[in-house]
């Protein structure tokens, strides 16, 4: 039986299609699930958005719940200045949510359990948000690194700490998602191993497995939510400099 980390292995499904700066790019299982998440969510949401009925059906209601959910999140956490970024935040949530949940399906692969993906996302958001803040506020943006009303002599200590704290954002953002997804899947895999190994006595771990799977589904949704809302909060910090 494969080890609990085996499920995270990325393998090529096709031969490399082309190279980008010496790096061969092939279609991988990760790529299939990324594109699959995009395809499934787009089909679902397009179906939901398509009719635009006054009294929504199920799919439309689902699409509208997503819309209102993220719309409220952006409005509550960023304010009216965040409207511009709503499509991005919405896509971010849908992408992470479907990535997380698809990975829980049997034979699924969770691309959000890879630090390369989560860190690239977090770092891009971080960079973009920082640039937005710099463009909007110029040098005043750096007031973010010194708390209001703190005594001036604490600046030499506080500013580096705040700077490190600020720079730790993409790390915490990406590591949180990556670690949650990885730990959950490892746990499930180990428990599944118990079920198989114990045979008839595997009923108890099986029950636990079912419970953990339910919990993992919750975590998958919750982590997508947290990833998105923290992006909103960072965006709000950059736009409004608290």
């Amino acid at each position: 039986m494969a080890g609990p980390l085996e499920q995270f292995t990325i393998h090529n499904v096709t031969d490399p299609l082309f190279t980008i700066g010496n790096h061969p790019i092939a279609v991988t299982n990760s790529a299939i699930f990324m594109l699959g998440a995009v395809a499934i969510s787009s089909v679902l949401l397009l179906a939901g958005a398509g009719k635009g009925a006054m009294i929504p059906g199920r799919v439309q209601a689902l699409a509208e719940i997503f819309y209102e959910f993220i719309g409220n999140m952006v409005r509550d956490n960023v304010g009216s200045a965040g409207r511009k970024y709503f499509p991005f935040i919405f896509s971010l949530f849908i992408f992470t949510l479907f990535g997380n949940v698809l990975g829980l399906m049997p034979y699924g692969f969770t691309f959000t359990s890879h630090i390369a993906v989560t860190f690239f996302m977090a770092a891009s958001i971080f960079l973009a948000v920082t640039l937005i803040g710099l463009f909007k506020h110029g040098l005043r943006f750096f007031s973010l690194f010194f708390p209001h009303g703190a005594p001036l002599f604490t600046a030499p200590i506080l500013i580096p700490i705040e700077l490190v704290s600020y720079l730790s954002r993409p790390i915490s953002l990406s590591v949180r998602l990556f670690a949650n997804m990885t730990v959950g899947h490892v746990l499930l895999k180990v428990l599944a191993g118990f079920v198989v190994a114990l045979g008839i006595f595997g009923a108890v771990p099986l029950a636990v497995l079912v419970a953990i799977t339910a919990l993992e589904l919750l975590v998958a949704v919750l982590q997508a939510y947290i990833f998105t809302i923290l992006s909103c909060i960072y965006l709000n910090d950059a736009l409004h400099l608290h």
Partner: protein
Amino acid sequence: MTEDERKADELDRRLRDVRQAYNTGVGKPSGSTGGSAGGGGEKLGVGMRIAVEMVAGVVAGAFLGLMADRWLGTKPWLLIVGFILGCGAAFLNVYRVAQAEEKRGKAERDAVSKK
């Protein structure tokens, strides 16, 4: 009071209720409170956040120190400084998460006690 007037008053009241519910967003599908996940999962999420914040701060500090060391050739001093700053940042981050949670919990309790 005539039957018609009573009916009109009744309709007035219902209209007012609907409008109020509509404007305050009670009747709307909304997830702005963030209560989409159950209490247990949320607590788990908060615990996880705090754990991750602690690690992330230290990692960020140490990484910056390491990079600066490589750049300036001052191994290992800036790594140590970075590590210490990272610890400070981690504490700050954890403090902020806890504070935000405290505030949110308070707001939730207020909302519950108001109802």
